[in-house]
């Protein structure tokens, strides 16, 4: 006779865990860390800026601005519409006194200073660059002032060399100012080393900066002072500056790129004539009005003088024909954290300024507001 096995008094030892299978503690730790990664990833995700919900100025123009900017990375914007001697302002989170970087619209101001200097007899468009800057017989010394203003000098877009390349890369990675500490002497030294290629159209920040510094040298002053004395001062553009160092109590907005990442202000020295100006729609409306009236110093800079791809170009000011056959004279600008557009329909006697604190083109916004009549 057999007896059934008695029931065990204790539970059997657990089976050994198969190799590679995590313990409960491991699973908890892994899950917790993965959760932390996911939460941090959501918190720091890139965010394309959206227009500020606050509205300033003329309600109809503000509504037109909000509609025009839909789909464009943008946050705070200010706009001015100038027509028949009247400036109308509006903004989204900004107004006509808000200070923005205007980037390469600065080239347009340099173009006005060039035309003004020619009218004064201080320089000639055929002057070689070496007549005004110490280029020591380098190839860039033979470049003509006028060709700099039409991007036909053969100079490259930017100075070559490892230092400038490193600045650009560092700026891209860190959001730093790629032009910080790049003075007039460094600019002239870069020009001495610059290759001068075919004089076909090639957009050149280097050329624009050299043109402005040549004008300053011819006038015996610094470029920001020249700008103040001959253009912004006479027009009453008191909020327009070209600081060579970040000012104390800086009034500038904190600009971002189109992914919402903050970028340091682009304070420039040597390159200021190419992109170092800050302004407001209030000030630029004064400029636009004076350009439409023909009373701005150097208004002749707007007149087209050469081809620039499919467009024409004066002293840095580009003239384009729109799809509906109208002629628009304009310049745009971008920095690490800002975008700008200034355009004029001279036949219609109308002009528009758009300033944004996001580095994403506002050209289409400006063109749209310029095309629309004051019945927004």
């Amino acid at each position, binding site marked *: 006779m057999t007896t059934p096995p008695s029931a065990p008094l204790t539970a059997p030892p657990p089976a050994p865990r198969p*190799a*590679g299978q*995590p*313990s409960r503690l*491991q699973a908890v*730790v*892994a*899950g917790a*860390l*993965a*959760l932390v*990664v*996911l939460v941090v*990833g*959501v918190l*720091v*995700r*890139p965010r*394309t800026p959206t227009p500020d919900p606050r509205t300033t100025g003329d309600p109809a123009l503000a509504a037109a601005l909000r509609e025009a900017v839909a789909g464009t*990375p943008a946050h705070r914007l200010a706009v001015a519409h100038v027509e028949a001697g009247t400036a109308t302002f509006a903004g989204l989170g900004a107004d006509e006194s808000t200070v923005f970087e205007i980037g390469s619209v600065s080239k347009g101001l340099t173009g006005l200073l060039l035309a003004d200097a020619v009218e004064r007899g201080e320089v000639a468009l055929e002057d070689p660059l070496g007549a005004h800057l110490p280029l020591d017989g380098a190839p860039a010394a033979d470049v003509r002032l006028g060709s700099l203003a039409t991007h036909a000098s053969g100079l490259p877009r930017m100075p070559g060399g490892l230092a400038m390349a490193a600045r650009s890369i560092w700026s*891209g*990675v*860190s*959001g730093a100012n790629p032009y910080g500490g790049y003075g007039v002497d460094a600019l002239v030294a870069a020009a001495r080393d610059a290759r001068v290629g075919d004089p076909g159209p090639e957009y050149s920040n280097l050329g624009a900066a050299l043109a402005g510094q040549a004008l300053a040298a011819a006038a015996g002053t610094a470029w920001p002072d020249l700008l103040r004395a001959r253009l912004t001062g006479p027009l009453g553009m008191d909020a327009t500056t070209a600081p060579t160092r970040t000012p104390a109590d800086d009034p500038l907005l904190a600009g971002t*790129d*189109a*992914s919402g*990442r903050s970028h340091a202000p682009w304070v420039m020295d040597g390159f200021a004539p190419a992109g170092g100006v800050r302004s407001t729609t209030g000030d630029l409306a004064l400029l636009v009005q004076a350009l439409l009236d023909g009373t701005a110093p150097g208004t002749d800079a707007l007149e087209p003088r050469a081809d620039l791809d499919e467009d024409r170009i004066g002293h840095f000011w580009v003239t384009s024909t729109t799809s509906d056959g109208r002629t628009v004279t304009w310049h745009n600008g971008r920095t690490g954290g800002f975008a700008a557009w200034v355009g004029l329909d001279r036949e219609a006697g109308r002009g528009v300024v758009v300033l944004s604190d996001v580095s*994403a083109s506002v050209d289409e916004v400006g063109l749209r507001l310029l095309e629309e009549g004051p019945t927004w």
Partner: protein
Amino acid sequence: MVILAWTTVLVPLLLVASWAWQTCRSPERPGGPGDRAALVTGVAEAVALVALARALTRWEAVPDVLWFALVALVAAGVVGTVRRWPGLPGLDPARPGRRRAALVTELAVAAVLVAVTL
């Protein structure tokens, strides 16, 4: 510009995916990290790649899902790292000095990259 935006996100995505695959597959398979130092530097490099992608990519030009794919891959890699941790020595006993130096260097580089891109 759009091609550049895709490149600056897809290259890190592929690199992080490769790392996540290495850490998540079975520890019995040949290859993969040989010590815990390699696990730590793998996480650090993946995080640095994501930080670089965040800084350099024009995110308005690519779908948001690519960002979340990057983050999900890092999370998967972290899970694989924890899973492999108990079975590995702290430093490869064959060359502990070199491994220690590599660990410190790679962690420092990754920390600097993350700091400047934030």
